[in-house]
């Protein structure tokens, strides 16, 4: 168990480092001069040269690379070229907004998907309908669904704000978008696990023992549904925290994904690096948490999965 954990942590660290190195190198190959992006109208070469010296852009790639990673290992993410403040202080509030959206999105998908799944498992006649809803939602790109919701609830029904921002009113549509896109996966898992469980020997035993329906559902059926659902929740939290770029762009939600897109356009390299690294860490950490939780809920999975 402890060995598995250590190994997973080391693999995760390697993956994050790999992502960071790739991102660093890629940013260097991107054509475009950050100095010129900062001072677009600067006429004199001296001004541009001055900016380059300030940002250490005049040094060879290898030196910049070594500097960046030396700082990174000390926990220093650097300073934004554009905002002139530390990347950590810039990224933290954005991460909080993305965190709220991720949380609301996961709650929405669990509620919507769980309801669909339970309906499909308990009422076989509903199953075909649920399957077609699932297929439609699966085929729907995130940003298309976001825009459709915006069109219907914002522009037609005037029930939701159509301007960007970050408040309780503005989070509803992006969270609903994430919820609907993610729902089919939960619906499927819940429906499958519940039907398996309902026709299993242990449920038959529980019925014979004279347990009430509620007790059977709670103590025997739902526990078996919980374990794969927990894995899925972990995976989703990780991938949403790495920035729900398209949803944040569609709704103007000021999260880490929107920040990443803006920083890429400004060639603000330290900020782009930080968003990519934070994203990779989120994915790796939540994968691990999901697996640990599953081992806790369902001790049968303690052996190393292939």
């Amino acid at each position, binding site marked *: 168990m402890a060995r598995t954990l250590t190994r997973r942590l080391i693999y995760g660290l*390697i993956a994050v480092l790999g992502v960071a190195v*790739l991102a660093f190198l890629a940013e260097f190959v991107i054509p475009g001069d950050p100095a010129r992006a900062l001072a677009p109208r600067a006429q004199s070469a001296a001004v541009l040269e001055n900016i380059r010296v300030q940002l250490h852009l005049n040094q060879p790639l290898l030196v910049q690379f070594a500097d960046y990673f030396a700082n990174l290992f000390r926990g220093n993410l650097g300073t934004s070229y554009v905002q002139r403040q530390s990347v950590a202080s810039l990224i933290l509030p954005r991460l909080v907004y993305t965190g709220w959206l991720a949380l609301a999105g996961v709650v929405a998908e669990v509620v919507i998907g769980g309801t669909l799944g339970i309906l499909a498992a308990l009422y076989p006649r509903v199953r075909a309908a649920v399957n077609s809803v699932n*297929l439609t939602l699966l*085929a729907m790109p995130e940003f298309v669904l976001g*825009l459709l919701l915006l069109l219907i609830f914002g522009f037609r029904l005037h029930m939701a704000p159509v301007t960007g921002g970050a408040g309780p009113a503005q989070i509803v549509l992006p969270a609903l978008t994430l919820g609907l896109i993610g729902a*089919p996966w939960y619906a*499927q898992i819940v429906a499958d696990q519940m039907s398996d469980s309902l026709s299993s020997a242990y449920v038959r035993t529980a019925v014979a023992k004279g347990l009430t329906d509620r007790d059977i559902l709670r103590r025997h059926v739902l526990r078996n549904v919980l374990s794969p659902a927990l894995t899925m929740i972990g995976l989703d939290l990780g991938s949403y925290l790495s920035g729900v770029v*398209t949803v944040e762009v569609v709704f103007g939600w000021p999260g880490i994904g929107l920040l990443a897109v803006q920083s890429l356009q400004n060639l603000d390299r330290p900020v782009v690096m930080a968003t990519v690294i934070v994203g990779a860490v989120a994915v*790796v950490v939540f994968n691990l948490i999901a697996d640990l939780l599953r081992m806790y809920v369902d001790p049968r999975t303690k052996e190393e999965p292939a």
Partner: protein
Amino acid sequence: MTAEAASPAPGTAGPGAAGATAGARARRTGRWPPTLIAGSALLLFFVMIAIAAPLFGNPLHQDLLGGLTRTGLPLGISRAHPLGTDTLGRSELARLAYGIRTSLIVAIIANITSITVGATVGLLAGFFGGPLETILMRLTDVGLALPYTLAALVIAGLMTAGLTRVIVIITALFWAYPARLVYGEVLRLRHRGFVESGEAMGASGITVVRRHLAPHMFPLLVTYSPLNAASAVVFEATLSYLGAGINPPTASLGNMISDGQDALSYAPHLLLVPAAAILLITMSFLLIGEGLKARNPDLARVSWLGR
């Protein structure tokens, strides 16, 4: 893209998987399951539109006088413009046909490239083992941990806009999951008789991989490819929507939707038309994927990009 990154949850088949018994029956009788028929028919319809795209008019022709209302708004549905016009007075039908063409070209080419790269990595890592396995599979971990959209935007910065850029981005991001699928399959078959007897007869490693192992990957990859194609279509549209894929004025469903977003309050058909097209194309691929899984229940575990 909830499918972003992450390792596959063990034992989770994709949603909508048809019942295994119906599938087993269809397989025995050689009949196609209904999902496979519906998906193929839908896809065929779009392929025909893509091939016949030039018949629907010029997607680049701007008609600022005849193609807009007197107040400068896009036209609605009419005989001259069956799907109306966009904000520049271009025929929405012509743009749609060319957008579908773009989507399908990306789906086909990017599908082949990403699966080829992934399968090669998986085969080599699984068969040869040792340091090669360690390097390739850790690289695959990196590929799966990449935040897809961000990574795509970074790569997009390296290249000029166009079809090639989209295909390169999708290949660079989509190879990792099939690599892991194939790797798992190779590990399963590695010590089977046909592989070991090939080696015992003195065939070189590459020959065993090529002649004996690779053909066994075929059913797996054929089942995976429509799901991969669906992801590719969605991703191309997302990239073009974010301005990192195919740039205007070339028609792509993604940049048509981006145009539609600006006109959301007064011309909703500019969103609805390309949105319906993309939804139906993706759905056709998903139906084909479900149909193939129903025909081959052993492969029901093959799921969409790691989910």
